[in-house]
């Protein structure tokens, strides 16, 4: 098939598929499809975005993905970018049928990007902002030296997951209570003095005794932002790199926290749409093969495509044809299946999706379990459905990254940085921790500390730029 012909076939198919999608009620941005050779698709896969800045870690990811592709071990069929209009890249050499399925899949992703609440604040012009940032980074390389920029990026990406995606969510008024500490210079003059503190946002500065006012006033989860704004070490270009990496993380964050839903949603719709498209016998078999490849399960990791798909189908069933019990107990009239899944796709993220909709029947049906390492073996450790569900939900919390906050930005009154890990049952990787602290030091320029919990004891790891230390608290 010559290329021109292939394009016109694809256009015809897309016309058809997008019309079907709209009939089903999907609501998506305009889409740019682009057919790319494998190394380009894999480049995009490694960088997350075609225009992103250059760094060896992306080269490493690219090398890994490309090698897998070359040895036929793995394959990315497509890649979609959350932007308006949406960009989607198709792998050159996909068959027409594969591309049909992929287009249906892409449309559903695009609908998800547009309508899921967590994507509300993502920049839809990120392709351009990333390109601009990449250009600036290149200029920094010319100006300050490649090695310097590279090693700074090394340090910055070591902390990149520590952002606060909910910064825009209003804090509850409780948090703005009067400061818990007291200073003797702060005398109560009238019984109504506490009213003033409502205005003070929890800050009280005493000019007489330099009362230890807290800095930051509340523990701050956004390490990237806190360091960018408060490190005395950083030059302008370094602040720029920090804030670019933070912005890009905030852009990718909703995709990370809705992976199961997003892939489930896309799989749900490529199935529904492809059922409406006319296929001949050979195509039907090819389609079935491809779909079953996508939802193939694994004993050691959850497949987001199949897990998401199963949950969406289950929700639809339970709201479309509720059981007697559900009708009475929850007042579900039935016939609301479609409406419900569209609502779920708009309102939830992965952890609430699993918490609210992963039922006992599903856990048992899908044979989900938790496993952990015992000696040299990895063994199934939990089969009870509620524990399994809760275990999965907690592994999705904060996208699976530890919750670490800035506790004190002026520790020991020497401007040292004191970080604290909110221990939630899982210990940190100590080897990694000790290797990460020097990066934090690079960014902060003064001694850095991290408090965490090991074997039920609070431990403080520190690094002063030369060596690390560890002590029990």
């Amino acid at each position, binding site marked *: 098939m010559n290329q021109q012909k292939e394009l016109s076939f694809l256009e015809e198919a897309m016309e058809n598929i997008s019309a079907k999608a709209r009939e089903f009620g999907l609501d998506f941005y305009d889409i740019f499809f682009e057919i*790319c050779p494998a190394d*380009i698709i894999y480049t995009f896969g490694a960088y997350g975005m075609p225009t992103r800045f250059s760094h060896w870690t992306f080269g490493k990811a690219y090398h890994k993905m490309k090698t897998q592709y070359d040895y036929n071990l793995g394959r990315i069929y497509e890649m979609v970018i959350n932007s308006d209009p949406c960009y989607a890249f198709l792998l050159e050499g996909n068959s027409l049928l594969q591309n049909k399925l992929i287009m249906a899949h892409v449309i559903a992703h695009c609908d998800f990007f547009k309508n899921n609440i967590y994507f509300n604040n993502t920049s839809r012009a990120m392709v351009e902002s990333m390109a601009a940032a990449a250009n600036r980074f290149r200029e920094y390389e010319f100006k300050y030296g490649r090695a310097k920029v590279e090693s700074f990026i090394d340090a910055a990406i070591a902390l990149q997951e520590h952002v606060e995606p909910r910064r825009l969510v209003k804090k509850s008024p409780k948090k703005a209570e009067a400061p818990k500490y007291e200073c003797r210079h702060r005398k109560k003059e009238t019984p109504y003095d506490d009213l003033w503190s409502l205005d003070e946002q929890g800050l009280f500065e005493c000019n007489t005794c330099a009362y230890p006012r807290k800095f930051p006033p509340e523990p701050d989860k956004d390490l990237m932002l806190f360091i960018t704004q408060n490190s005395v070490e950083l030059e302008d270009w370094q602040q720029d790199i920090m804030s670019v990496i933070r912005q890009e993380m905030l852009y990718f964050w909703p995709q990370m926290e809705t992976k199961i839903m997003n892939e489930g949603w896309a799989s749900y719709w490529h199935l529904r749409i492809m059922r409406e498209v006319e296929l001949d016998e050979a195509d039907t078999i090819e389609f079935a093969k491809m779909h079953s490849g996508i939802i193939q399960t694994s004993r050691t*990791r*959850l497949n987001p495509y199949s897990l998401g798909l199963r949950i969406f189908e289950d929700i639809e069933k339970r709201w479309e044809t509720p059981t007697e019990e559900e009708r009475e107990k929850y007042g579900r009239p039935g016939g609301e299946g479609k409406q419900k899944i569209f609502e779920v796709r708009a309102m939830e993220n992965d952890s609430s999706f699993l918490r609210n909709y992963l039922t006992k029947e599903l856990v048992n049906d899908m044979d989900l379990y938790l496993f952990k390492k015992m000696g040299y073996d990895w063994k199934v450790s939990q089969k009870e459905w509620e524990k399994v569900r809760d275990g999965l939900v907690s592994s999705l919390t904060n996208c699976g990254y530890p919750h670490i906050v800035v506790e004190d930005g002026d520790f020991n009154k020497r401007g040292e940085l004191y970080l604290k890990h909110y221990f939630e049952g899982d210990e940190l990787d100590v080897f990694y921790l000790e290797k990460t602290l020097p990066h934090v030091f690079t960014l902060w320029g003064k001694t850095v500390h991290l408090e965490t919990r090991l074997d039920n004891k609070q431990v403080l790891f520190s690094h002063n730029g030369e060596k690390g230390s560890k002590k029990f608290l």
Partner: protein
Amino acid sequence: MAKTNFVITREDWSLHRKGEIDRQRHREKVREAIKKNLADIVSEESIIMHDGRKVVKVPIRSLDEFHFRYDFGKQQHGGQGDGNSKQGDVIYSDPQQKQGKGKGAGEEPGVDYYEADITVDELAEMIFEDLGLPNLEQKKKPEIASEAAEFKDVRKKGIASNIDRKRTIMEVIKRNALQGNPGLHGITPEDLRYKTWETTYKFESSAVVLAMMDTSGSMGPFEKYIARSFFFWMVRFLRTKYNNVQIVFLAHHTEAKETTEEEFFTKGASGGTRCSSVYKLALEVIEKRYSPQDYNIYGFHFSDGDNLSSDNENCVKQINALLEVCNMVGYGEIEGPYYYTSTLRNTFKKIQNPKFTCVTIRDKSGVYPALKKFFSQTQEKK
């Protein structure tokens, strides 16, 4: 409803090289990291026992992307069974230490560190970069000749693949200019120029290496492994750097005998230790086959130092005799799990000859420094 707006295109991506460029940079970093970690890598089991495979895997921890993360091994993870999973089912077993690294079904949970693929040759090149045979002297019989092809000539006839484009074009321009029609056009057969090589011979003094190893009962698997790692690289080094280095393998316990290379590395023996036996054999070999007048002679001996104490004095005597005929004698002592108070090394402290080098290897990472110490070319300048 309005028609969907979409565009399907196919662009020329051939100039998009970002992935390749960063991949290149990553490769550079891998090489840097390997160079920094040579001490650990040199004695990697997968390399010493690489049984002819060309590519080996080298663990590189410094290229991990460090960040705060949970301890994967202590966490619970989600998985999905085929419908009949039960509590306690083993779903995957980590390859246990020491055993062959048979890769499982490719389902191992979370690869803990990054492994780079590298060919043994590439690795050897890095290791050998600054090694050389010390104290090399000009001997009567210059046997070592390394042959090299060097492109240093340009001719009018040659192989098409060796066309010298730049010179050819110069000829065209020259000819055209002479003919009064300057410019670059019309290449005639007379314009063609070819690069051609000349074979050059490099004469060096001849050398023989006497590889001596203790194979007594006290040499456990660890000690043998260390000696083996050292000789592995030594043999490889000598054979890549020089064309005609001869290597003689001598194994000993209470008695010494000459073995083949294969026997030397694979055969285990038992019994007590009498190091002087191997020195004596070495002297005999030298006397019979390698006259010090014609050869540079190097002797290397590895042992755990647990020598028969009555033999120690004799050893010193023999070593001194060896030093008279050798350019260098090296003794490597491998400190095993047991600590001997009176080892051969202590006895050898008496020897003050600068041609004698003594090293102690405590663990695997000691092999590389030992190689460097034995084969540093700069030694003679000291």
